[in-house]
């Protein structure tokens, strides 16, 4: 029944579009981060869109400058629905706070089509550390000011900012050790050269399960159903702590409503399909809570405000 309704809605949408025959040629989905989970999920979504739209959807890599090159490129592309962006927390929430002269406006220069992936971060510590929960960790850190080291995948990453926020909320002093990616930092955490780090849940889950690192809390407001027994930072005494890594499909600002609606509908349908759900889930993504273009824009606005505040209090800046 539901499927018929969707079909009817689609038919109505198609009729509404009328003369519009989008898409009549291949659609390009620009991905700013080659090789990583953003790239992989872009291809998952592109394949689904291709089936639904009947035109090739090609993932095109445009790496550089923390995603700024790709985002700027799409912001200045023709708003005809043939150039899309896999925008992310870095391009649309963190960079605006970190970089004083961003060439694009993350809100006004885009139509925010659909949120695709939301990944919780997790606080993990070296197994030799005596702290078994967040309270003990805070006490331990307080007794050794300036002695503990926390790693992160890069300066200005969610892992770094989460650490800075943690320091600020608990009144502890720890040293930030930046890495080029989070994998080498995890290696140094396992071997005891680092004491703690905030890492994305999916990549640390195997090491947590194998007992190579100890997880103390998740950074999201709600517990995650991947590890339901793991408490949140919010309930561990850091009231209001809420951070998630996310990315989703966006289009240039003047893209037509019918195209945005069609895309958003198809992406949501893909996200709800069993196989895509399963694929994104193994990458640590929970099914996104944001389910319309308007809600996505509102979500980005609130994230942008959050990181503007966070970057300010943490003092994190590219010098």
């Amino acid at each position: 029944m539901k499927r018929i309704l969707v079909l009817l809605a689609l038919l109505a949408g198609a009729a509404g579009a009328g003369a519009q025959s989008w898409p009549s040629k291949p659609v390009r989905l620009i991905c700013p981060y080659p090789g990583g989970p953003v790239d992989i999920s872009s291809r998952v979504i592109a394949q689904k869109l291709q089936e639904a739209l009947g035109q090739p959807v090609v993932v095109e890599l445009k790496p550089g400058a923390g995603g700024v090159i790709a985002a700027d490129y799409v912001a200045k592309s023709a708003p005809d629905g043939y150039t899309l962006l896999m925008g992310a927390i870095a391009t649309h929430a963190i960079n605006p706070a970190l970089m004083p002269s961003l060439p694009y406006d993350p809100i006004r220069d885009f139509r925010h089509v659909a949120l695709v992936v939301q990944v919780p971060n997790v606080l993990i510590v070296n197994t030799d550390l005596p702290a078994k929960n967040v309270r003990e960790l805070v006490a331990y850190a307080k007794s050794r000011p300036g002695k503990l080291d926390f790693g992160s995948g890069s300066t200005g990453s969610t892992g770094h900012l989460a650490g800075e926020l943690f320091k600020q909320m608990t009144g502890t002093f720890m040293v930030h050790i930046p890495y080029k990616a989070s994998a080498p930092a995890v290696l140094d955490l396992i071997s005891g050269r680092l004491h703690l780090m905030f890492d994305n849940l999916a990549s640390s889950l195997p090491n947590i399960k194998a007992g190579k690192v100890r997880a103390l809390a998740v950074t999201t407001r709600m517990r995650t159903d991947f590890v339901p027994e793991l408490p949140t930072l919010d309930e561990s005494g850091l009231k209001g702590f809420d951070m998630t890594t996310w990315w989703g499909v966006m289009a240039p600002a003047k893209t037509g409503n019918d195209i945005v609606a069609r895309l958003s509908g198809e992406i949501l349908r893909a996200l709800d399909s069993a196989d895509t759900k399963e694929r994104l889930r193994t990458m640590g993504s929970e099914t996104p809570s944001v389910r319309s273009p308007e809600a996505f824009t509102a979500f980005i606005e609130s994230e942008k405000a959050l990181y503007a505040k966070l970057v300010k209090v943490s003092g994190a800046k590219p010098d």
Partner: protein
Amino acid sequence: MKIKSPKDFWAGLMFIAFGLFFLVVARNYQMGSAVRMGPAYFPSVLGGIMAVLGAIIVFQSMIFAGPPIPKLSFKPLFFISLALVLFGYLLKPLGFILALAVLIFVCAFGGHEFRAKEVAMLTVVLIIFSVLVFVKGLTLPFPLWPEKFS
């Protein structure tokens, strides 16, 4: 002082120039301390070492004799460079096929002899091959023709 080894003399000067360049530009960044090395620390040290090495090489070039610098040939240099730049910046506006044709024709002028018929045939063969392998096979996202006509 006479230059006895021109190759070393100019190489040394080049190293001095590169060293000073990095040294001067690095002044825009923070030096930091040994504990918290700033972004300027490493390049400044390296730039300094390189400038000194360059000076030693220049000095040596006045003592030890070496062969002269062979003549530069500007014809291939010019056409190869031009061909590459044209290809890069024409690919988006003209499309893959025309940009390739430009690349092949221009660089062929840099060769020993330019045989128009042969170059034309080579162009056709290379374009067919490249379209099949790169665009059809490896699905690189290149437009084949100019935007307007596709």
